[in-house]
């Protein structure tokens, strides 16, 4: 996986060159000007050398200067990527500490190297580079991988918390620091209110995505995850907006007499900037989605178009002084996702951390104990205040409130990251004579939060969750607990999710009627289960199932009776080993939180588990159909393993026809969260084979099972498209598995490609497919 990332570097390299060249052009802000003089030297040396060798053509020459900047930048990024690979190879590490720890260390290392060798022209970042090139990919990527549905369900709380939280933190920290500065003893009295406020705004820019990876290991619940995610997403945008507004203020008034009118104007501007940015982003997102509808034949262009549109939205918003970050976030949300994004954002982030590392190891610090310590203290205090106060209020309105434990976790996950550093770094020196102090303080806060909080949050989360259940459980309990978890997960899926149902209803209606038709193209790539079957050839799958699962026929009663008497002989070690077997082999309950974030893309175990379950089910289905059972659960003894558990429903009533044909036909079934199985975007080749595979299963259903009315639906209906649409549309959903299940089991559902064909094709299909079916049944019979 890391290798792949490396391979994809080549397009990124060119982009990097651009950045790097700008780097070299930019006037060094903080670094000494010895660079320029040092730069003259080797030039002179080369000049001298070349003047000597004027008559002869140098056979072997060294021109390091020419490639220096891109060379070094590439080396750093390579180094960081290698470090990341190593980081992930050791499986437990990502759960222990956030990845930004690693990046910071690498950055510091590079900085140390540069400092130690007293290198000329270390990298310099100026605000245009940051805002134009480095920041958009990071934000874009955050927006793409956002799980849309839970985000919008919690959007009230998220907006309330992220927006107000950022504001409270910023102003709180700024004001308290200002008060501290007033104390003459600390020698800080030249730092005025505006500067403090600005510092507050930049230091409150939290980057908790780093901790999300840690959360994954600890299985925090979904709303909590969403809060942190939403905060990470919106926080950058909000702090940057605030930062810019305050910078404008600072530039306007050198003194501290700011009139209330200005403050009001500032607030209004804040709102306009925010909302305008989002608006822009959404529009661009729609345009881009519309265009990508036509690019199915030139799929190489797609990522480019997507990226360009997002970037364009950013730039356009910035032109109008609207918030580009929020624009790009909104744009990303409205578009589909691409893997390409992760690469760019990783590169961006790495660069920023390198800059950070470089400035850490350097002479550019001003250490003021009071300021730094109080900054740290106030950061924590104000975050605590904002968390508890805001959540107290929002809990009144939420259907399921956040517990105190959740709030503690949210408080503790206030890890600062690259964002704050960049903003601090870019403070204009002219307005901020004490800029170095700010930078130092920011660095200290970042290091503290990332390392100390980042590393300890994992154990903390686990401790808070697991506190109660430390005792050893009997095998019984383990099994039953797991069963109940599965049961609960199943029922939750049956229920779907709902909240603010009415509003979402209406939005979905609108979405389906108009947006989907316009924006989603007709032929989507094949879904995941089909590729699953492609992956395991049918025969192999059957073999695996047969040897693994079907190897035992049902137990006959006499065997059972024998066993009863022999049960006393189990020793404690046996019990222990049994418990181990159970714990390690029982299927995991489907994760509700999506386990991809910035740092990892695919979990392997759930994929394997889902495969097994699906194969098993597929097999039992086939068997039950073969036997012509209309009731798949018969008496257990003497029959093959019939796996359906009876759902204790009440008296089955005769079917009641519901004359009202109301709105949604299956939209909400897409709400259910899926196991985070991500299959790569597949090629559309091999569709014939896939179709064969899928339809092999389908006609089995149409084998008459008693007098049961066939649910085969011949006429195409629009709900098919809508039905699949949600699966595609969700910005985050990875090739929904459930769509695949549809193809498998739903007798009437045709795959996407089919839907474009006429209905008469259906009748042609069962014939060849049935042959397949028959060809396979001898295999089974042989056993």
């Amino acid at each position, binding site marked *: 996986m890391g290798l792949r990332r490396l391979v994809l570097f080549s397009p990124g390299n060119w982009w990097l060159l651009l950045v790097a060249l700008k780097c070299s052009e930019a006037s060094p802000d903080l670094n000494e000007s010895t660079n320029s003089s040092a730069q003259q030297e080797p030039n002179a040396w080369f000049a001298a050398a070349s003047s000597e060798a004027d008559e002869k053509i140098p056979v072997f020459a060294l021109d390091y200067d020419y490639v220096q900047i891109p060379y070094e930048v590439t080396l750093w990024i390579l180094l960081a990527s290698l470090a990341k690979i190593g980081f992930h190879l050791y499986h437990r590490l990502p759960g222990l500490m956030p990845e930004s720890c690693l990046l910071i260390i690498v950055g510091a290392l590079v900085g140390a190297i540069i400092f130690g060798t007293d290198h000329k022209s270390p990298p310099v970042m100026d605000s245009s580079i940051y805002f134009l090139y480095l920041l958009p990919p990071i934000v874009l990527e955050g927006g793409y991988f956002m799980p849309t549905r839970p985000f919008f369900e919690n959007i009230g709380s998220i907006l309330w918390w992220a927006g107000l939280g950022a504001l409270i933190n910023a102003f709180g920290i700024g004001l308290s620091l200002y008060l501290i500065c007033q104390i003459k003893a600390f020698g800080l009295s030249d730092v005025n209110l505006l500067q403090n406020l600005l510092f507050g705004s930049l230091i409150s820019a939290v980057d908790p995505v780093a901790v999300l990876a840690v959360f994954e290991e600890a299985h925090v619940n979904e709303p909590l995850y969403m809060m942190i995610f939403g905060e990470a997403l919106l926080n950058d945008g909000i702090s940057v907006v605030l930062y810019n507004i305050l910078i404008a203020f600072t530039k306007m008034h050198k003194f501290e007499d700011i009139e209330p009118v200005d403050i009001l104007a500032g607030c209004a501007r804040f709102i306009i900037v925010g909302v305008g940015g989002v608006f822009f982003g959404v529009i661009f997102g729609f345009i881009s989605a519309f265009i990508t509808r036509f690019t199915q034949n030139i799929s190489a262009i797609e990522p480019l178009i997507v990226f360009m549109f997002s970037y364009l939205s950013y730039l356009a918003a910035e032109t109008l002084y609207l918030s580009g970050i929020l624009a790009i976030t909104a744009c990303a949300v409205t578009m589909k996702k691409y893997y390409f994004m992760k690469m760019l954002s990783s590169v961006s982030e790495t660069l920023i951390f390198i800059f950070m590392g470089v400035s850490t190891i350097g002479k550019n610090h001003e250490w003021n104990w009071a300021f730094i310590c109080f900054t740290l203290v106030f950061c924590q205090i104000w975050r605590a205040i904002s968390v508890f106060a805001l959540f107290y209020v929002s809990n009144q309105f939420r259907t399921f409130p956040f517990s105190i434990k959740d709030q503690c976790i949210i408080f503790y996950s206030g890890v600062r990251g690259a964002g704050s550093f960049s903003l601090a770094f870019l403070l204009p020196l002219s307005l901020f004579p004490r800029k170095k102090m700010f930078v130092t303080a920011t660095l200290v806060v970042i290091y503290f939060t990332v390392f100390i909080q980042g590393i300890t949050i994992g154990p903390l989360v686990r401790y808070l969750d697991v506190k109660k259940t430390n005792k050893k459980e009997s095998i019984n309990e383990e099994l039953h607990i797991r069963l109940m978890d599965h049961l609960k997960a199943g029922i939750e899926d049956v229920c779907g999710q709902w909240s603010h149902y009415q509003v979402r209803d209406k939005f979905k209606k609108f979405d389906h009627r108009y947006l989907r038709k316009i924006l989603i193209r007709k032929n989507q790539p094949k879904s995941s289960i089909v590729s699953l079957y492609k992956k395991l050839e049918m025969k192999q799958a059957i073999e695996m199932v047969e040897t693994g699962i079907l190897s035992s026929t049902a*137990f006959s009663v006499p065997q059972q009776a024998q066993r009863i008497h022999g049960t006393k002989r189990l020793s404690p070690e046996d019990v222990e080993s049994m418990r181990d*077997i159970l714990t390690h082999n029982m299927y995991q309950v489907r994760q509700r939180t999506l386990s991809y974030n910035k740092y990892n893309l695919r979990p392997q175990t759930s994929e394997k588990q889902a495969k097994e379950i699906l194969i098993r089910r597929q097999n039992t289905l086939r068997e039950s159909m073969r036997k012509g059972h209309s009731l798949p659960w018969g008496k*257990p003894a003497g029959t093959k393993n019939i796996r359906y558990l009876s759902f204790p429903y009440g008296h089955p009533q005769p079917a009641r026809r519901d004359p009202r044909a109301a709105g949604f036909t299956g939209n909400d079934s897409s709400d259910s969260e899926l196991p985070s199985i991500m299959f790569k975007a597949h090629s559309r080749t091999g569709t014939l084979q896939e179709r064969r595979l899928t339809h092999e299963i389908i006609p089995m259903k149409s084998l008459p099972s008693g007098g049961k009315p066939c649910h085969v639906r011949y006429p195409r209906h629009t709900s098919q498209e809508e039905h699949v649409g949600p699966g595609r549309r969700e910005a985050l959903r990875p090739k929904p598995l459930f769509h695949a299940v*549809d193809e498998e089991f739903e007798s009437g559902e045709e795959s996407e490609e089919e839907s474009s064909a006429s209905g008469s094709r259906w009748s042609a299909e069962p014939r060849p497919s049935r042959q397949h079916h028959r060809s396979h049944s001898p295999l089974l019979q042989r056993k």
Partner: protein
Amino acid sequence: MGSRGSHAARIPDGDSIRRETGFSQASLLRLYHRFRALDRNKKGYLSRMDLQQIGALAVNPLGCGVGNLRVDFPGFVRVLAHFRPVDDEDPGMRDPKEPEPLNSRMNKLRFAFQLYDLDRDGKISRHEMLQVLRLMVGVQVTEEQLESIADRTVQEADEDGDGAVSFLEFAKSLEKMDIEQKMSIRILK
């Protein structure tokens, strides 16, 4: 808001269902919408097909277990009622003559018990336990291991030595477990 009222009136037997299961009006309405959404052909009941469309159910090892039974709306609600969070009222205040609410601990346990007891004879035999085990465990566990685990499970819970686990034994083996929390879904409140 007016439309909500008319919706509620459209649920057949809405009042009696509400009384029986204890759902609030709003929740019942949501369940009704969900039922209608799942019931793709507007048959008025849910078949196995409908439930299997819920993708995550497909990879739920317990299977969706409806089979060919038709689940109508009252049945649907009744099942889901088991998963309502337990009301925190003072148990003394409840009218003892009324039947236990569907989401009481006992009823939740009974529901879980029925998942094991496939032939509905009121006991979980070793065979049934084995079947459930097989569902829940990956393919790499051998059959002998599964058998011995099933043996052990039954043995642990079985107190009267009949080789099967009755409902009371089942409940007893889980007395330390927080069933109310495990089998409650918050949104069903």
